[in-house]
């Protein structure tokens, strides 16, 4: 005879099917709130207490703040509001709670008008998933009524309604997580080196959050690179899983994937990082910015040195040298850094002394991350001496002839000669861009006592300037020497 009654097991199955996974009456650990109004690492105990009181009203079992503080100290948690999965799960185990509540004070001000805003999230400890979150912001004028009666005046007036609103929708029961998952829970990865030459050894070290996963629970781990698998083995200290392999022969970037095969047969893959195989030295080009004359670079004040990589890649080190004609290095500078955008050489040695005029070689050397190096050299001429101008004077009666001549050197940008009478009147002005030049003029008549003064200025294309002040032009045949010629150090138009 069939008894029309259900077996208790079937009833249990029915409830599980109908209600889904079991519902837990939650114990909650309310962690101190991060207070961003203080600093990026601030904490607000006042608002935390308010949150705790509001949650307690819901009849939820709360973990004492002393236990939570001990947990924070035990796990060396220094930043609140952003706990990791491991910390959440540890809180679940050690504090015996199903839920953790963490939050952040985004705004909190008493004046000019009170305002408070908070964001909170409720996290299930069994799988560290966020099951509920809410943000609430309240400003005093949000509670201002039309008649202005009982308007909030301080933060406590806001708190009276704020926390109720913030936590009104917070669930007090939580559906338990479906499965206790097998976790490939990586704590840290060290993949060295990041750039390697072909054939050199690459080493990958992986540390799991829980290295001792229990008997038979440890997955088989292999590093997969370019279609080949390299098994991981536990190091002698039992701290890292380590795998080594030779770098590939072909240049390129190689991603490294961790493959895990669990005893249950489940496979898991995780990208660990990548490294670059480099078989070529960096190709560096050098641009010198100075004045180019007949295909050669000249400078007098500043030489801009611009190094570039024709095929850009990260560099580990660079060095620049200035070498003179005797193969002596007069400047050496470098850094373990990226290439500089531009270097400036002001014609001085490393010790600060001014280098003599002459021809130099700029050598720039660069090393890439695998320490393959290349260098480039360019010639440059340093000319700091001003143009040497010879002035020759001839007189034929009242006629005066001045011959200007330039010794070898840089071409001139311009020159001019002014001849003044004794009373300061301009007797002759002559100018040009090329030398030699001949200037002829009549001796001025009048109360001049036969004395004339001259000012000669010449500037070469590099900016070097010669200024000669001649007090008695007629009183000398060759005026370069002699006591009456003065070399001006600064600009003097009036004299």
């Amino acid at each position, binding site marked *: 005879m069939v008894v029309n009654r259900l077996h208790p097991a079937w009833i249990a199955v029915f409830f599980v099917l109908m209600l889904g996974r079991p519902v837990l009456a939650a114990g909650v650990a309310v962690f101190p709130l991060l207070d961003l109004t203080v600093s990026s690492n601030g904490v607000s105990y006042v608002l935390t207490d308010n949150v705790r009181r509001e949650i307690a009203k819901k009849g939820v079992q709360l973990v004492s703040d002393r236990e939570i503080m001990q947990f924070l100290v035990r796990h060396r948690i220094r930043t609140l509001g952003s706990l990791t999965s491991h910390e959440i799960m540890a809180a679940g185990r050690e504090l015996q709670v199903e839920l953790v509540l963490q939050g952040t004070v985004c705004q909190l001000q008493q004046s000019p008008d009170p305002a408070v805003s908070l*964001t909170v*999230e409720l996290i299930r400890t069994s799988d560290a998933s966020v099951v509920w*979150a809410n943000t609430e912001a309240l400003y005093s004028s949000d509670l201002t009524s039309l008649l202005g009666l009982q308007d909030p005046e301080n933060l406590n007036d806001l708190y009276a309604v704020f926390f109720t609103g913030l936590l009104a929708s917070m669930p007090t029961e939580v559906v338990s997580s479906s499965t206790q998952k097998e976790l490939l829970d990586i704590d840290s990865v060290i993949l060295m080196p990041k750039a390697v030459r072909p054939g050199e050894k690459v080493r990958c070290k992986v540390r799991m959050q829980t290295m001792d996963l229990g008997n038979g629970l440890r997955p088989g781990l292999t590093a997969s690179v370019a279609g080949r698998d390299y098994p991981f083995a536990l190091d002698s200290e039992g701290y890292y899983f380590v795998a080594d392999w030779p770098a590939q022969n072909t240049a390129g970037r190689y991603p490294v994937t961790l493959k895990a095969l669990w005893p249950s047969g489940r496979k898991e893959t995780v990208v660990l990082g990548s490294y670059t195989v480099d078989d070529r030295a960096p190709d560096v080009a050098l641009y010198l910015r100075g004045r180019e004359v007949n295909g050669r670079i000249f400078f007098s004040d500043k030489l801009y040195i611009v190094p570039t990589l024709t095929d850009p890649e990260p560099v580990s080190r660079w060095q620049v040298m200035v070498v003179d004609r005797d193969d002596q290095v007069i400047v050496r500078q470098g850094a373990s850094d990226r290439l500089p955008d531009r270097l400036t050489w002001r014609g001085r040695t490393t010790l600060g002394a001014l280098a003599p005029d002459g021809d130099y070689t700029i050598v720039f050397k660069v090393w890439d991350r695998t320490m393959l190096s290349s260098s480039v050299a360019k010639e440059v001429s340093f000319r700091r001496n001003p143009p040497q101008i010879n002035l020759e004077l001839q007189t034929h009666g009242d006629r005066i002839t001045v011959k200007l001549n330039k010794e070898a050197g840089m071409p001139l940008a311009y020159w001019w000669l002014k001849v003044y009478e004794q009373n300061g009147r301009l007797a002759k002005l002559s100018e040009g861009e090329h030398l030699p030049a001949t200037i002829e003029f009549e001796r001025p008549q009048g109360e001049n006592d036969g004395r004339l003064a001259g000012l000669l200025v010449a500037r070469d294309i590099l900016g070097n300037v010669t200024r000669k002040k001649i007090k008695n032009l007629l009183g000398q045949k060759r005026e370069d020497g002699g006591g009456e010629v003065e070399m001006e150090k600064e600009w003097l138009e009036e004299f």
Partner: protein
Amino acid sequence: MSRLCRCCIVMLLLLPAACAREVPTLYEFADLPENGACRIAVLPFVDKGSYPRGAAILSKVFVSELVASGKFKVVLEGDILDLYKQLMIYPNAQPNQEQLQIIGGRLGVVLFIGGDIVKMQQQKNRKTMETDLTFILRVYDGTDGRMLWETYHRRRGDYYQKVLHFGRINTITGLARQMSREVISLWLEKGMAPCPR
């Protein structure tokens, strides 16, 4: 009033609305993954505004609104910051594509959301609090770090004012929450597939 006159008035009223830029503005560079956008990681935002710790506030508010929408599973901020530490990425820097690929693989996310705060401001003006927020949010593929969508949004708190002071948003957090909701609604409307129930 003649019919023509009324039509002209209506046209004049509608003209400014037609010229105004519609925000939030979504730019779609590529399709979202076909298998939905269930598990999402919100990366720390890059702060180009002047509000103290504005990026942290917006990022926490945005995560909160994603969770509150009930459509997505959001990775814990602590897990992301932990990976940033491992990969030596500054929290105020945007990871490169390779780093995104590594983070995505480690966290098992389908999508990343990153973004920039362009302007974040809250200041007292006479009797009212003026709030102003402009941000750009980007959606990246969780497997290869490609940028898929970009959304620009800009609002001031008085935009939401209805009558008298009612409706006006007086806090930057409140404005961030409201704007986050608008962006999430737009994304869902444009086809971002939520977690299956």
